[in-house]
């Protein structure tokens, strides 16, 4: 029973494929893998936008959307129907293209954003036996396809012929390139210890429990440091607060998609959220045990439920961060990436190697590895604070 519930979708697909002739099967199999994925994450996008607005509202002491429920009825659902009018509004709004804009590039930019973002979902194991394509170089595929997002940001910013758009695009690209390095370096620790780029192998390496706790990589010193860095870099990669300089409303209007309206704007919005889900999904796969249950007595819950629970938990964390932290300044952003994140990611790489070679020494390797991370963290942090490269924001008010 538990087994069949866990494999429900896999079996459903095989059952449906059984009715088809041999020749059609590969094609239909691909369609049957992709369509539910797009539908589920598209639905998640709709829910999360409301979730985010309501969550931010709570944090800022207001209600957030709470009127729209199911259309043509009196059921309000606490405002969770808001995405329906939002979607309709985006669809029927006039599509304004600036006269000076480079029409073709302006049109292609949102498409170029969405394609790589959707492609990254191909390698995410969202449940047991539930990976669309289990590439031998899966993690590399994720990062390489993700790199194409920068091109779309540039296309959007440049083709609009608007200085706010161009500034936002240049900020965005600089930020994405800078934070891609700690992102990849922190993922490399996991790849190094698992010895495989295959996402299913990485999840399989985190199976099982020791002393009631799961064998997730986040519960090791290097894994914890790596996970924290991965999350920070993921926040920056998905252009979310406190790293939302590329689209800082109060400075750049909306950054690289200032000149987009209607459906194209909705595509940018969708691409951004789907990119965020994908990168969180990779973080879960790498550090949080993928679809594995956190405790031995909870293993009966289907694997995809665990994946989605972890995903929603981190999405909530991202919303919380957005509501709490102020936006960074450009120089702070850059020096944080280059002077703190990258050195720490490199040190973490060494720590992971030390951890590997000290296997079998028991508590000693925990102490050594924890010290190897905490020492540089304190020294680096203090050094940067002293020179005021990083540090608390000071406010100056007009006299």
């Amino acid at each position, binding site marked *: 029973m538990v087994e069949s519930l866990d494999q429900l979708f896999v079996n459903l697909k095989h059952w449906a494929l059984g009715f088809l002739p041999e020749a059609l099967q590969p094609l239909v199999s691909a369609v049957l893998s992709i369509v539910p994925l797009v539908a589920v994450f598209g639905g998640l996008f709709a829910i999360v936008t409301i979730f985010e607005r309501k969550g931010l509202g709570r944090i800022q002491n207001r209600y957030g959307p709470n009127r729209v429920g199911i259309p043509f009825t009196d059921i309000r659902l606490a405002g969770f129907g808001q995405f329906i009018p939002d979607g309709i509004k985006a669809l029927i709004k006039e599509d304004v293209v600036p006269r000076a804009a480079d029409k073709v590039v302006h049109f292609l930019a949102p498409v170029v954003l969405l394609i790589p973002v959707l492609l990254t979902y191909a390698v995410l194991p969202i449940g047991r036996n539930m990976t669309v394509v289990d590439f*031998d170089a899966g993690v590399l595929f994720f990062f390489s396809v993700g*790199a194409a997002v920068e091109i779309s940001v540039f296309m959007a910013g*440049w083709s609009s012929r608007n200085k706010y758009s*161009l500034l936002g695009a240049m900020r965005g*690209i600089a930020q994405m390139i800078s934070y891609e390095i700690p992102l990849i370096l922190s993922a490399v620790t996991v790849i190094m210890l698992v010895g495989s780029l295959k996402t299913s192998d990485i999840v399989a390496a985190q199976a099982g429990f020791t002393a009631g706790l799961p064998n997730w990589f986040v519960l090791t010193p290097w894994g914890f440091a790596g996970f924290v860095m991965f999350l920070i870099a993921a926040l920056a990669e998905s252009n979310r607060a406190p790293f939302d300089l590329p689209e800082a409303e109060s400075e750049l209007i909306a950054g690289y998609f200032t000149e987009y309206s209607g459906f194209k704007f909705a595509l940018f919005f969708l691409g951004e959220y789907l990119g965020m889900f994908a990168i969180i999904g990779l973080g879960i796969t790498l550090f949080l045990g993928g679809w594995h249950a956190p405790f031995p007595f909870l293993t009966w819950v289907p694997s995809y439920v665990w994946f989605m629970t972890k995903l929603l938990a981190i999405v909530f964390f991202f919303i919380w961060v957005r509501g709490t932290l102020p936006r960074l300044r450009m120089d702070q952003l850059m020096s944080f990436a280059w002077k703190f994140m990258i050195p720490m990611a490199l040190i973490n790489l060494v720590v992971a190697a030390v951890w590997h070679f000290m296997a079998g020494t028991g508590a000693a390797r925990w102490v050594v590895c924890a010290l190897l991370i905490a020492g540089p963290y304190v020294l680096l942090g203090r050094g940067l604070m002293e020179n005021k490269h990083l540090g608390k924001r000071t406010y100056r008010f007009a006299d």
Partner: protein
Amino acid sequence: MSPVFLILALVTLLSAVAAISFRNLVHCSLSLVVTFAGLAGLYLQLHAQFVGFAQVLVYIGAVAILIVFAILLTRSADTPNHAVLAPGWLVGIAVAVVVFGALGLAILKSEAISKKVPAAPEATVKQIGDALMNQYVLPLEVIGLLLTAAMIGAVIIAMRDDKEAK
């Protein structure tokens, strides 16, 4: 000649021609991205998965972005009004055609090219990693050194001189 190969080859060639013939440099660099993507597809067709992904990561994620940054930093993003071709461009085209003729002739007439198609080779990431860490470890270290040197060199060359700034 599989249809997939023909489509990818057509996309690659057309975008390569576009990359060198558009007047606007940004359009050129965007066409270049398509060429790189097409080449990555061809690598996948040739069962070189790792190289195909590395191609996308390095060329689209880094080289194309670098080119775009250089275009914007040198203020050449606008469509130029003056001639874009070098004075001796006809000679240049002639040279290119001659080169292609020689290469094409060599390819079509060569006896060394075997007619039989061997079984698809397998190159897993593990094999590549083993080869890099054993047989090719010295080249790997040298590449690491070269990349570091190139990075420092590029920063120093592009850095504004202090004298100039004042």
